[in-house]
């Protein structure tokens, strides 16, 4: 690993934001990915993660802080762990991928 890579950290990006089509029903979302042809039913938590990642790729920590913004509660370490698991599930569903930031 060279010096420039040492400064990088592992983050997440949405696979292809332009190919995602959303339908919102209360706190649930239907998501159609025209790249893969897959349809996903997602809870609000997953939808917010994807929408945040569509703004820009980021680490789980940065993502946690962004999602906690405006909340009175501090962003807990366990929330970051929870997000990491969620991001891995979204990657398995073909919606996110890891990226060097």
């Amino acid at each position, binding site marked *: 690993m060279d010096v420039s890579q040492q400064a990088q950290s592992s983050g997440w990006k949405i696979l292809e934001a332009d190919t995602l*089509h959303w*339908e919102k*029903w*209360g706190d*649930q979302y*239907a998501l*159609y990915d*025209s790249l893969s*042809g897959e*349809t996903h*039913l997602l809870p609000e938590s997953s939808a917010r993660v994807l929408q945040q990642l569509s703004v820009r790729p980021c680490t789980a920590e940065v993502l946690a802080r962004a999602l906690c913004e405006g909340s009175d509660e501090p962003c807990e370490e366990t929330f970051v762990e929870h997000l990491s698991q969620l991001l891995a599930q979204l990657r398995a569903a073909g919606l996110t991928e890891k990226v060097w930031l």
Partner: protein
Amino acid sequence: MLAGLTGEACHQRLADRGLLLKTGPFTVELRSDIDGFIPLLRQFYGQFPVVEAPAIADFHVRLLRPGGVRRWWRPQVQFLLDGQSPFRPFQLSHAFPLFEWGLNWGIAMQAHQYLMLHSAVVERAGKVLILPAWPGCGKSTLCAALVSRGWRLFSDEFGLVRVADGQMLPLPRPTPLKNKSIDVIRDFAPDATIGPAFHGTRKGTVAHLQTPDASVIQAHIPAPPGWLVFPRYQAGAPLHLKPIDMPQAFLKLANNSFNYRLQGLQGFQAVTRLVRHCDRYILSYSDLDAAIDTLNQLADA
């Protein structure tokens, strides 16, 4: 209409250049040399429009007697769609159910200009009730019962959704009743015309319920979707109409479609629009009268 052709003229077209029948949005070119098939075709499709040649047909169907020993030993009938034979031959006397199944198969395989739901569809007061179900849920029986009580038949098999505007298109055809359903509908609607019983088919005994003339005459008139009701027949079960939320209805409907995946984004948009625009329920029932009362109340509310 087909009834306007003499038996001889009908026979001649079937044997020669083909009979062009209009059923819903489709034109079917039909050829056949099966004598026993023609009276049933005339009985069940008598009110259907005949298209005069030259015309473009959506489906080219032939019902033929295969050659060789099967021409006279346990004679058979073969179904050809666009020159291809997708099924094994049936016994000759089953030519009519073979035509019905074969045409259904052809529509399901080819009519991808529409989103196709596997559902019965009926209309009342200008809005459509969609009854999506897989085999065994009592879809055709409930549909036949509703039609016998005045609902307009769109189809007992296909929910055809025009993706451009979300309108439902009629495709009225004879309703195949199976096994116990035949007597259920005979008792429920004694005035209904039910054709001969075909025993020993892949689905047991099948008899066809004639489509009401009014449904055939209005087969060119689409209607917007109003209600999505997933029927579930359970012997002895009390009637229960349970509302379901949009995500649940979306999943059930997308999984029920013949060609949701093939439709891509427009399929997603068509299903979400249906779910948004319809009242959505699961209907558990055993008593047809009670089920129809409930659905009438739903439509008249």
